[in-house]
């Protein structure tokens, strides 16, 4: 399927958000995710189904003021 991942169009074979993170080598407890503007909690990722052209944001901690 085609997804918009952090603003970039990408084709990934993934049925759920957890599949997508694994397929793209996102790993670790320090990730926050949202799909189509809604937060998806860590525990919900494996049961969260993705659809064509879903907008996925994958954020992590960064230095800030």
């Amino acid at each position: 399927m085609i997804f918009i991942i952090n603003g970039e169009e990408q084709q990934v074979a993934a049925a759920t958000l957890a599949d997508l993170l694994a397929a793209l080598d996102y790993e670790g407890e320090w990730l926050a995710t949202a799909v189509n503007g809604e937060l998806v909690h860590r525990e919900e990722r494996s049961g969260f189904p993705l659809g064509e052209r879903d907008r996925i944001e994958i954020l992590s901690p960064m230095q800030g003021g």
Partner: protein
Amino acid sequence: MMLTLYGTSVSSRLLLGTARYPSPAVLAEAVRASRTDIVTVSLRRETAGSRTGGAFFELIRTLGVRVLPNTAGCHTVSEAVLTAKMARDLFSTDWIKLEVIGNHDTLQPDVFALVEAARILSGEGFKVFPYTTDDLVVAEKLLDAGCQVLMPWCAPIGSAMGPVNLPALRSMRASFPEVPLIVDAGIGRPSHAATVMELGFDAVLLNTAVAGAADPAAMAAAFSGAIDAGRIAFHAGMLEPRDMAVPSTPIIGKAVFS
């Protein structure tokens, strides 16, 4: 007396940003030297396979400080609200430094969007630390929206100008005597921090003034001292300036030689 923010007491009146240090090691030294209890952090898009965010957060965890995530870079209510929710999920804290930027050049907050985002987030259980201006009407609306702390700028972010409008800061302090007020943004040097603390502000949030110094750890220590000095002076009762000299040495009993 300790500073209490949303029911949490902290001993340091310096909040420190974590951006723009020359290296992670220097950041860690500066945090320790500042003796801060609270550091600000941000959220950014993670590149696949890079794990940079995890490495940064492991460093912060070793410092034993409380984290105040921000919504820096957000320009709309919906961006700020979603970023706050993602920050809560990631950092396991309901504290959020709410920034909704309205002007690219001055990084002035969009106070209309700020109030709206503050109302939404307060309603969802967030403890909102709004980055705002020194405008009293906006301050009142932020309190109505559920904020129990206000963070007015004293000059544009990163400008190092120091307090450009002292009368506005004074009237803000006088208008909200019970509300914790943290000066956020625009401080350049320790004397600026001491000045706003002397006015009775409760704390100062710094980043560039420390991170951009030639020796960030030494500057963090300098700010820590200045903030303590300003706070003590505020409680100690300072003299008002006067136009004419007043001799400090008593005149009575002075010898007369001619």
